[in-house]
C-alpha cells in the first residue's frame, strides 16, 4: 500500500469522501486529469486543510452561491500573506460548500514546478502554473479557476501595505472576455495577518531563485479569515485597446476593494471570532 493510500485511510472521513464524490471532475482510470490533479491526494489535502480552515483560521465564507454550479468561471481575489493560504482557503470553501461543491484550480507561480515534491503536490491538489494557455484550456474544460492578478506583488508585500491592492495584471480580463467567462470577485480578509512581513531579503531570494524571502515568523498565525464572494461580473464585446481593458480590470478591483471593506467591518478582531 502506498503512502497516499495509507494517508487516505488514516485521514479521510467517509463524509468527506462522499463530499468529494459529489464533485463532478472527469479523471482517468488512475485518478489523474491532464494537469496532474489527483482525486485521492486532493481528498487527503482537503481533510488536513479543512481542520485548519475550521479550527485554526475559523474561516467564514459569504456569497458562495455566486460561484456557478457548473460551467467555466474565474474567481478573482486579492493576494496576501507570503504563502498561498488565501488560495487554499478559497479552494476549500468552494469544495466543501453544501450545494454543488467544485474542485477549483489555482494558478501558481512559475517556479513551483521546479521545486521537488512541492510542484507535484500542488498539481495533485489542483494548482497549475500561471500560463495563459493553461488557463484557456482549463476554461474550455469548464473548470473554476482561482486567479490572483496581483501575483507576487500582492503575496510578497510587507505588512505596512496591508489591504492596499497592488497593480492587477490585465491578462485575466483578456482571457475572460475571449472565453465568455464570468468573473467572481472575492475579498479576502485575514490572510494579511497570517504571516506579517517586515520586508524582503532580496539578495537571498535572488540567490535561491524564488520571488521573495520575507522577514517574518516562519509559521502562519491564527488570524480570523473572512471570504466574501461577490456577484458574477460579465464583460463582453470586442477589445478596442488596452486602456479599455485596464478600465474593466479597475471595475473588478473596485468591487474587490468593496468586498474587503465589507469583510473588515464584519471582523470583530484580527485573532478573535
Amino acid at each position, binding site marked *: 500500500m502506498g503512502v497516499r493510500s495509507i494517508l487516505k485511510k488514516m485521514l479521510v472521513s467517509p463524509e468527506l469522501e462522499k463530499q468529494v464524490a459529489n464533485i463532478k471532475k472527469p479523471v482517468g482510470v*488512475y485518478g489523474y*486529469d491532464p494537469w*496532474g490533479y489527483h482525486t485521492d491526494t486532493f481528498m487527503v489535502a482537503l481533510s488536513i486543510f479543512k481542520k485548519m480552515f475550521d479550527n485554526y483560521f475559523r474561516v467564514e465564507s459569504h456569497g458562495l452561491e455566486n460561484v456557478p454550479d457548473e460551467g467555466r468561471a474565474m474567481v478573482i481575489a486579492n493576494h496576501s500573506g507570503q504563502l498561498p493560504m488565501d488560495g487554499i482557503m478559497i479552494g476549500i470553501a468552494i469544495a466543501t460548500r453544501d450545494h454543488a461543491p467544485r474542485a477549483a484550480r489555482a494558478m501558481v507561480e*512559475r517556479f513551483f*514546478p521546479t521545486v*521537488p515534491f512541492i510542484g507535484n503536490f500542488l*498539481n495533485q491538489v489542483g494548482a497549475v502554473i500561471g500560463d495563459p494557455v493553461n488557463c484557456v484550456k482549463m476554461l474550455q474544460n469548464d473548470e473554476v479557476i482561482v486567479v490572483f492578478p496581483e501575483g507576487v506583488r500582492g503575496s510578497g508585500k510587507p505588512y505596512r501595505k496591508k489591504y492596499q491592492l497592488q497593480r492587477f495584471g490585465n491578462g485575466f480580463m483578456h482571457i475572460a472576455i475571449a472565453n465568455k467567462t464570468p468573473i467572481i470577485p472575492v475579498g479576502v480578509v485575514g490572510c494579511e495577518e497570517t504571516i506579517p512581513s517586515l520586508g524582503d531579503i532580496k539578495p537571498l531570494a535572488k540567490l535561491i531563485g524564488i520571488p521573495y524571502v520575507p522577514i517574518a515568523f516562519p509559521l502562519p498565525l491564527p488570524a480570523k479569515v473572512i471570504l466574501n464572494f461577490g456577484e458574477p461580473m460579465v464583460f463582453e464585446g470586442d477589445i478596442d485597446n488596452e486602456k479599455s481593458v485596464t478600465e474593466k480590470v479597475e471595475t473588478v478591483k473596485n468591487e474587490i476593494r468593496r468586498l474587503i471593506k465589507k469583510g473588515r467591518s464584519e471582523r470583530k478582531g484580527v485573532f478573535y471570532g
Partner: protein
Amino acid sequence: MAEEKKPKVLITGARGALAQQVITRMKSHFRLVIVDFRRRVVMDEDIPSYFVHITKRGFEDIFREHKIDGIIHLGRMESDESNRFSRYNANVLGTQNMLDLCIKYNVSQVLILSTFFVYGANAYNPVPLDEGAPLKASALTKNLVDTVELENLAHIYMWKHRDLNLTILRPCNIVGPGVRNSMSLLLSRKTSPVLIGFNPMMQFIHIGDIAKAIVKAYKKNTPGIYNVAPNDWVGYQDALVASGCRRIPIPSIPPVVPMTISRFLNLKSFPSYLINYFKYPAIIDGSLFAKTFNFKPSRGLDYIFQHYRRKKSKKPID
C-alpha cells in the same frame, strides 16, 4: 480490388515491432514494399524486402523498380540508438533524400512517424500541448536536435510540395509487446530509476493502437500534423508501480546530479539527455487526430501495465 490495381506502399523501418504490426494490417489492402536500414527483413513471399540505408544511392533503386504510390516512414532512429551524428545522418539527411525521391518519382502520399519528444519537457509547458505549440526539444539537449530537424524539414516539404500529401504523426510514449524504446525498457525492468520529488504526468499508447492509428491516417489521407494520444494520464512513478517495478530514487537537484549519475552508470533507458522528461510533463492533445480520423485507442492503461506485470512474472501474455 484486383491485385495490380491496389496502391503500392513503401514501409521503412520494417524490422521494428510497430512496422510489423502496420504491415500485417496493411497487406490485404495494399501492395507492400518494405525496407530496413539495419538488416534484411523476411516477410511473406509476395512482399519485396530491401536492406539498404536511406542515405545511400541504392535506396533509389526501390523507386526505379516499383511504382511507389505512398510511403509510411517508420524508419526513424530512436533517441536512444547509436550516437547523435548517426541519428542526424539517418533521420534528417536520410529523410531529405527520401522526400526528394518522392518528388522525383511522383509519390503522392507520405506519412512520417515523429514523436511527442519534439515539444520538449519543460517546467513551464502548458497542458495539453496542441499541434501548434513550439518545438522546444532541441533547446534541452543536442541529442534531440535530429528529432526536431526532421520535423522542420518535413514542414518545409509539406508546404513547398503539396502534392506529397504529407502527414506527420506525433505519438505519446509507444509501449507494449516488442517495443524497445526507453520507456518500454523502464516499464519492463524489475527496478527503474525515478527522480526524488518528481512524478510527471505521462501518456501511453499501446503498439497495437498506434499501428491502427497509422493505418487509419494513411487510408484517409488528410495531410497535416497530428498528435496521437489517448484521453488518459498517469504519473511516471504510478506507471512504474502499476507495471510491477521497484522504484530506485535518484537525487533530482541540482539538475547536474541526475545527469551525472545517468552518464556515470550508463543508464541506457534513463539517458541523461532525457532526464527532463522524467521531471516535467509534456502532455499532448490528441483530440484533433481523434476527431479527424475517428480514432479511439482500444487498450487502456490497465491493459498496458498488465502486460509488463505479466512479463515480469513470466506468465503467458495475451
